[in-house]
């Protein structure tokens, strides 16, 4: 009887959470909802109920059962479980020094150079500081504290901002003058013109990727091609927007090569499943894989996209991180244009960021996407979505323009700028090599060269015993390895399963970012740990 009353009242009150969870139809209460009913409801819902139509109060609206399932589905390993473990250990170390066989946690999980001691480019910071606080620009003391060309550049930039108001929302695509600078920088880099109206400045490159996913994905029948392994922003973003990730496997045996035959095969498979593949995401230089595409490869990719009607999403945030003389970065736009494909021929979105390169300004959230080959109606929609957030942070916009137009030969700051830049890039190249060599010496480990980007992605061949142990703990084998590594050495890496890999293979991603003087210790601790691990589990 009580249950019947509860159910009847439920039908009048309508529990927002439970009915939706059970997919029950509402009973309309279109006539009224008055105090009597609410009092009755509160009385009755305090009754115990052993149906899953529990009382209102025990199922508040924002529970894991009732949140957007796409949120539940998405994953992002770079700041996932291993990092939580690391943070716990770090707290341990602070509370009880000596409680672990290492003195510090070494975060090699995330491409965050300045958190590991990399210094910002002085010229950029001078300009940013002056733009943040322009009232010191005409003080004589400022001349003594800042380089002359940084002062000049700050004036130039402030003139491009209406009212020199860096605290005002800008145009939703970003300050026009800054976009002009960026377009000129793109043109200088590629030898092909860039239109400032094609540029959308964003809070880092990531929001630009989200925007494109939102635009392209209509339902789970829409697929986006992603490299495997990939930077998990892509898989997470696709999941959040309700689409389907269509994988194309990079070939580890050939330095993470991208084969068109693989693309064709996967496209066919996806189409047979009824998936409409909308875009191809390429990360060049690669993350986590570090390969720099050969130009010929890039041409094949452009042709493929043109033929199959795919939007090419070119993640080029590591364009300044190339460590091998035999490879060079070529933007996909440059490649497409040099093939004779103009703005009308191929939809292409190119992403750049201030977080990587030699500037490593992750915390600034600066970046842009250059959107070419879209109809005006589509461009309007992109603009509209950008406008809902009004604009990206101005300081980040300024920094993006500086990155695309740094000091030139002859500028007062050029020498010191170049020394800083070169120092960082050379050091990154050295660290990449030392770590790569160190990893390749480990039993059962092979590691492709990091031609670019900021990561190494070694393959680890785990003994069956280790795999079984991992499975018994309900962990992916590489996650188990990474956790053991962390506990033994304090080194934080991200398990390969966070990026995707050929099933049955295991990897981890390690950054090349710890300071150079720490690298030998990292290699030796890693080596020692690996030896012990293999000893423990060797078949």
């Amino acid at each position, binding site marked *: 009887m009580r249950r019947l009353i509860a159910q009847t009242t439920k039908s009048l009150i309508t529990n927002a*959470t439970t009915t*939706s969870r059970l997919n029950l139809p509402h009973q309309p209460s279109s006539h009224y909802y008055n105090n009597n009913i609410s009092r009755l409801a509160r009385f009755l819902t305090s009754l115990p109920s052993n149906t899953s139509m529990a009382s209102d109060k025990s199922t508040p609206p924002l529970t894991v059962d009732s949140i*957007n399932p796409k949120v539940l589905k998405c994953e992002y390993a770079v700041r996932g479980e291993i990092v939580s473990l690391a943070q716990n250990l770090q707290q341990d170390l602070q509370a009880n020094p000596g409680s672990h066989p290492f003195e510090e946690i070494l975060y090699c999980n995330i491409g965050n150079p300045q*958190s590991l001691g990399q210094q910002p480019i002085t010229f950029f910071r001078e300009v940013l500081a002056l733009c*943040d606080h322009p009232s010191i620009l005409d003080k004589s003391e400022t001349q003594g504290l800042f380089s002359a060309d940084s002062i000049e550049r700050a004036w130039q930039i402030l003139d491009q901002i209406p009212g020199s108001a860096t605290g005002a929302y800008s145009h939703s695509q970003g300050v026009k003058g800054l976009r002009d600078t960026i377009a000129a920088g793109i043109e200088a880099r590629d030898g092909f013109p860039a239109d400032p109206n094609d540029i959308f400045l964003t809070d880092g490159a990531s929001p630009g990727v989200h925007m494109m996913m939102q635009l392209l994905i209509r339902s789970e029948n829409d697929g986006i091609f992603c490299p495997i392994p990939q930077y998990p922003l892509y898989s997470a973003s696709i999941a959040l927007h309700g689409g389907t990730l269509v994988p194309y496997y990079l070939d580890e045996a050939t330095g993470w090569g991208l084969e068109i035959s693989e693309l064709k095969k996967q496209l066919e498979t996806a189409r047979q499943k009824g998936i409409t593949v909308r875009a191809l995401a390429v990360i060049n230089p690669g993350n986590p894989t570090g390969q720099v595409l050969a130009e010929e490869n890039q041409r094949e990719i452009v042709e493929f996209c043109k033929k199959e009607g795919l939007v090419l999403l070119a993640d080029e945030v590591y364009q300044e991180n190339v460590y091998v003389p035999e490879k060079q970065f070529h933007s996909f736009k440059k490649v497409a244009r040099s093939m004779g494909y103009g703005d009308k021929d191929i939809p292409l979105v190119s992403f750049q960021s201030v977080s990587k390169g030699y500037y490593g300004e*992750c*915390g600034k*959230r600066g970046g842009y996407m250059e959107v070419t080959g879209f109809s005006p109606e589509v461009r309007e929609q992109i603009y*509209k979505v950008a406008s809902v957030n009004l604009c990206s942070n*101005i300081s980040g916009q300024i920094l993006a323009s500086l990155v695309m137009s740094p000091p030139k030969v002859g500028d007062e700051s050029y020498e010191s700028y170049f020394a800083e830049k070169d120092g960082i890039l050379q050091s990154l190249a050295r660290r990449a090599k030392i770590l790569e060599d160190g990893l390749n010496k480990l039993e059962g480990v092979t590691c492709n060269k990091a031609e670019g980007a900021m990561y190494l992605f070694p393959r680890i061949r785990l003994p069956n015993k280790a795999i079984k142990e991992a499975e018994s703990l309900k962990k992916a084998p590489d996650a188990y390895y990474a956790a053991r590594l962390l506990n033994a050495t304090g080194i934080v890496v991200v398990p390969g399963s966070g990026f995707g890999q050929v099933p049955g293979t295991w990897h981890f991603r390690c950054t090349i970012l710890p300071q150079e003087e720490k690298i030998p210790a990292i290699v030796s601790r890693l080596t020692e740990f690996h030896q012990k691990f293999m000893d423990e589990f060797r078949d």
Partner: protein
Amino acid sequence: MSRKALDYDQLNENVKKAQYAVRGELYLRASELQKEGKKIIFTNVGNPHALGQKPLTFPRQVVALCQAPFLLDDPNVGLLFPADAIAKAKLYLSYTSGGLGAYSDSRGLPGIRKEVAEFIGRRDGYPSNPELIYLTDGASKGVMQILQTIIRGNGDGILVPVPQYPLYSAAISLFGGSLVPYYLEENANWGLDINNLRQSVAEARSKGITVRAMVIINPGNPTGQCLSVDNLKEILRFCYQENLVLLGDEVYQQNVYQDERPFISSRKVMLDMGPPISKELQLISFHTVSKGFLGECGQRGGYFEMTNIPPESVEEIYKVASISLSPNVPGMIFMGCMVSPPKPGDISYDQFIRESTGILESLRKRAHMMTDGFNSCKNVVCNFTEGAMYSFPQVKLPPKAIEAAKQAGKVPDVFYCLKLLEATGISTVPGSGFGQKEGVFHLRTTILPAEEDMPAIMESFKKFNDAFMNQYEGNSWYSRM
């Protein structure tokens, strides 16, 4: 064969449906006219610095020092920067691991979040937990994150005030949810009638919509009303009874221009009400550095504070935040300076007080000037701007004007606002961009133009309105001075 992936008809429908009038048709037309050389007064968006409001000195000093830490090592730094700004910069840099250029914790720098919690504690008289405070790239990003977490599909409804700031309608559209409007009462100073709420919810449910959350904007945008404690209590009780998450957009909490209803946070009222509401009602509160007296829109600094959200849900919200790695760190510095401003005795205190009260007093004056100016027009009725940054006058349009609008293929208030723009350069946002009752027309303008420019702007409006009314209603019309 070449197929086109990104033809207009192949775009996500939710994107196409979303609208955001604040930078829509009127703004685009205004930008065009500006390029042609016409002087435009942009009163379409709450963007104080764009209309001449100056940034506060202290936060700019602090952030400049944080941007260029080499300054801190220079013996001459004291010639340009006061000691308390230098100390604050050093403190904030110590909150970071690597300065402004490193990704912070995905929730924002713990040190800043602690300061935010302390600010909330001082403001409300109840402690706040820094672990449940997430810094975001502006409050808008936080709103979008939360709505994305709540909305599962078009069966999910979000209660939104009408008129509303169209971030809500746009975000709900983008995430494929349903907007459930509740009408504010223009005749009662844009007050919130609980019966309207109930009716809206009932109607939505009868259409099979599950109402999940309720948005309140307090002080209101575009309407400016400040909710009374009683109103807030009613709302809290309502959300509790109806099992809704309350989303409290409180970005204008420092912008209050009357003394009868000061700002009181939803959280304080909720906690004052005691259990069960205080312990069970799910509440998310939003704040920003863009408004108040800082007006630092371009920095994109904001936060949301979660109350009574279950840990598993918080984990999911954290996960989504982590995908974007971290909000921008300079914005966090501004947030710190906002919640922990100079104190009495600090070197910069007097200047801080002078600058901040100067701005707020002027805003109060301008709120009156604008309201009075609009009300002096016979066909315009304007509620007083109790708070926020906008004026939202109702413009009564004669039938001939409505007909002319129809002929021109425009909604009547868009028609009016375009004509206003072309005649005077004043760029407003038509009321249809915010929602309004059928057949009632408004426009939203900001109260942000400089005080000395206000009389001329209101004169200019009146002259246009006179001419418009003469044109469409004939010579029986006059403006009351």
